[in-house]
Structure formats: structure tokens, C-alpha cells
């Protein structure tokens, strides 16, 4: 953890009216690593990602991406920072009036000078990587939820971003489908080597992918440590979370047996 962090959140607070949701977030995200933010629903995990993306402004505190504060930077500067981002939204946020092909091609068309043929080849390559061959001409409404997430992932990765954000990548999918997403994630990260930030409550499976796990509880990041340390942490909040999410279903050892 000695390297300079790629993203740093320093005492970030967010207030909605009388309710303070983020109460001083301190979090560092390191290059090439996978950081997973876990926590119960409604704690504001997605909010953290929205703040890093610059889609929301904190009430106070700083967010540094490569050392630049994204809330004071110019529009042009923000655009340059975002050019390194890839985002998989919770509900994929595909452009519903465009086909799957057009969705994945959009970043290439708008942000690069690639020719029509280069775009076609690159999109075809991404769709193959996501096991989506033959779905290019379909519209988002015509494909399943799991496929939509994979299209979202293809669109997020098509420009080889340096940092990829995943907002609940497997929520609403069955076990087989979420395993599929994890496999795709693992395959693409090995191939493309991006830094990733994942918001998830799919504990403990998500630990397999994580380099660091951060627990958001009560508006504060409790700790950001390796999954092994997380599971044996002495921090009472983390211990309670681990017990709640990974512990027994039954009330006593006897019933469990």
C-alpha cells in the first residue's frame, strides 16, 4: 500500500437536507488493484462511486483522481479524467433506442477517429469477449438482464479504460449469471489490466476477486484491507458484518447440523 493512490477521497461528506449520508469518507484506490466496497443496502455505496465520477458534488471534502481535485477542476479537465473511466451502472444504463452494437460502438464513434470498419471489428471483438455474438442487432429491451450487464461491461471496456467502476454488477441475477459476470470480469481484467472499484453486497463471493475490501457503515469507511484481514478483523463493526453475511443461517449449532 506504499504506492501513490490513483483515487483518494479525503473526509468526503454528503448531506441531503437534514440527513448526512456520507460522514467523512476516507478511501484510497490503488493502481492495478481491485477494491470492493461492501456494506448493507442504503448505506450510500453507490453514492461513493457517483462522487468519484463527478456526477455528484460532496457537501465538503476532497476527491483526488491522479492528484487532481475533480470538484475544482475545469470541465475540460474533468472530461480528460473521465476519458480514463469505464462505468458499469447498476441497471446498465444502456441507450435503449440504440441496438447493442450501436451502444458498444458509441464511445468509439464519439471519442476516437476510428473508421467504420475498425469500429465494426472492435465491437465484434468486445461482443465475442462477453459471449454476446449474434446479439448485436438486438435492442436492450429484447435481451435478458444478464446480457444487458455484459453489454454495459463491453461498452465500459471498449476504449481500454484505466479505471473501471462496477455498481452492483450482479444484483438481480441468479447464481449462474452472476458467476458468469465474475468470470467475464476476471477474464477482462487479466487481459486489460485495469484498476477496478466494485460496489457489491455479494459477500463472500466477491472476496475472491478483491485485493482490498472496504466496509461502509454509518457513513464511514470502517477499514480498507485485504479480504483475509477483513474476515479476521478485530474491528467490531467488520466482525459483525462478516458474521451476519457469512455466518450460520440457523440460531444454534445443533440446528445448523
Amino acid at each position, binding site marked *: 500500500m506504499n504506492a501513490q493512490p490513483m483515487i483518494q477521497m479525503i473526509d468526503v461528506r454528503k448531506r441531503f437536507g437534514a440527513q448526512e449520508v456520507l460522514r467523512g469518507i476516507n478511501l484510497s484506490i490503488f493502481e492495478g488493484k481491485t477494491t470492493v466496497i461492501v456494506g448493507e443496502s442504503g448505506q450510500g455505496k453507490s453514492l461513493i462511486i457517483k462522487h468519484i465520477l463527478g456526477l455528484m458534488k460532496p457537501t465538503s471534502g476532497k476527491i483526488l483522481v491522479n492528484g487532481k481535485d475533480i470538484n475544482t477542476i475545469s470541465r475540460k479537465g474533468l*472530461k480528460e479524467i473521465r476519458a480514463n*473511466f469505464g*462505468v458499469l451502472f447498476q*441497471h446498465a*444504463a*444502456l*441507450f435503449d433506442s440504440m441496438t447493442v452494437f450501436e451502444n458498444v460502438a458509441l464511445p468509439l464513434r*464519439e471519442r476516437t477517429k476510428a473508421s467504420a470498419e475498425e469500429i465494426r471489428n472492435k465491437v465484434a471483438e468486445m461482443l465475442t469477449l462477453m459471449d454476446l455474438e449474434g446479439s448485436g442487432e438486438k435492442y436492450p429491451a429484447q435481451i435478458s438482464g444478464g446480457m444487458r450487464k455484459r453489454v454495459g461491461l463491453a*461498452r465500459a471496456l471498449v476504449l481500454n479504460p484505466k479505471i473501471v467502476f462496477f455498481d452492483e454488477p450482479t444484483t438481480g441475477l441468479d447464481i449462474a449469471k452472476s458467476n458468469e459476470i465474475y468470470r467475464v470480469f476476471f477474464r477482462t481484467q487479466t487481459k486489460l489490466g485495469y484498476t477496478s472499484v466494485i460496489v457489491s453486497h455479494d459477500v463472500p463471493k466477491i472476496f475472491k476477486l478483491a485485493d482490498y475490501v472496504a466496509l461502509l457503515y454509518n457513513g464511514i469507511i470502517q477499514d480498507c484491507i485485504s479480504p483475509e484481514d477483513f474476515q479476521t478483523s478485530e474491528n467490531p463493526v467488520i466482525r459483525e458484518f462478516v458474521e451476519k453475511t457469512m455466518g450460520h443461517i440457523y440460531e444454534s449449532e445443533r440446528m445448523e447440523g
Partner: protein
Amino acid sequence: MTRILNTVGELTLYYVNQAGRMGIFLAFVIYHIIKLPYYKIAHVIKQIYIIGTLSVFVIVFTGAFTGMVLALQGFNTLSKFGSEGLIGSVVALSLIRELGPVLAALMVTGRAGSAICAEIGIMRNSEQIDALECMAIDPHKYIMAPKFIAALVSVPLLTAVFNVVGIFGGYIVGVKLMGANEGAFFTSMYRDVEFADISMGFIKSVCFGLLIVWICAAKGYYVHMERSGGFGAEGVSRVTTSAVVLSSVSILVLDYIITSLLI
């Protein structure tokens, strides 16, 4: 008492905020219109088709009936003074200076303005606009600029269609049905319609085109900040209604202002 003051203050802040938001929105779009790369022409043409071409039918229909009713009313009034010959000039001037730009703009608001607002509102609600921003694609450039150019091109053209069809409708009713003199119909029109009338109608239609697309697009874009609340489908439906109402009222107010300045 404090509650009243609170509410007044809150409302004032909200509306000042909204005005500022919309002003900044317009400034960004104009910047991107000026800088819009040539390869975006396909997007612009698609929007001209949606806003302009698809509105032609409703414009022709309303234009014809407006001209017809103008001729009918005008003929009855003018015949009291024995001036039926002026019917051509009455129909043409009313349409070119006033009714053409206003009614065409109101029709475009109802048909295309509401669609623009709803489309952008849904894009905002389903995070599609956030997704664009995160891809470092500016929504002002990608979504708004083509729509603005399309509206600025389409509305004056639709107004022209409205006027021509309206005058033709007036001719059918005035001359063919009511029996006004055909020669007098056209002579009075040629004599009384001046370039200033046409340019006034043109200026109005360009301003209305900008007003419609500005209000409808900005309302949809900021659907999540609306004070009237309501999320999802309900939020979009409310904001679309309010965009159509606001556009229509603004068109009539702006019409008065432009007329008073140019007359």
C-alpha cells in the same frame, strides 16, 4: 409569518436557480452548435426528420383550416363594407405576421416539444445521461446541439408551409366558396404584403423554434431537480406537461414582445 417568508424565499431561490440553470444550459448548447463537427450532420438530419418532416401533416391540416376560417370570417365582415376584394390581403397578412408563426410553433410544441422533453427526461431517469457524461461525451453536444439546429431549421420552414397552405385554404373558401373576386384576392395580397411582414414572421418563427427546443430540452434534462417532485414515469409526465404549458405561454408572451418591437 416566518413560514410564509420561508416559502417565499424558497420559491425565489428555486426560480432564480432554475433560470440560471437554463441560461447556462443554453450557453453550453450554443457553444457546441458553433463547434459542432461536420460529421454530426447525420444526427442533425435525423432530428430534422423527427421535428420537421413528421410535423408536416399536422401543420398542413391546421394551416388549411386556419386560412379557411379566416376567409370565412373576413368575408362576412368585409362584405358589410363592400370590401370583399381585400380578403386576400386580410388572410395573407394575418397568417404571415401573426397566426402562421404562432400556430405553427404551438403545433410543434405539442407534437415535437413534448417528445423531446419526454425522451430526454427518460434518458436522465434511466442514468443514460450520466452514462454519457462518464464516457466523456458531452450531452450538450451529443443530444442537444442536433435537436437545437433541427428546431431552428424546421420551425421557420414549417411556418412557411403553414402560411402557404393557409393562403390556399383562404383562396378556396374566399374565392371558390364565397365568390370573392379572384383577381382582387391576389392583387390585394401582392399590394399589401411587404417584405417587412415576411421578415417579421421569419424572425418570430426562428425565436419560437429556439424557445420551444430550449424549454422542452432543458426541462427534460433537469427533470431530477424539479420542485414539483415525482420520480420515474410520473416525474417525466409532469415535467413534459409543464414544458408544453410553459413553452406555449412563452410563445404568446414573446409574440407580443417581438410584435411591439418590430411594428
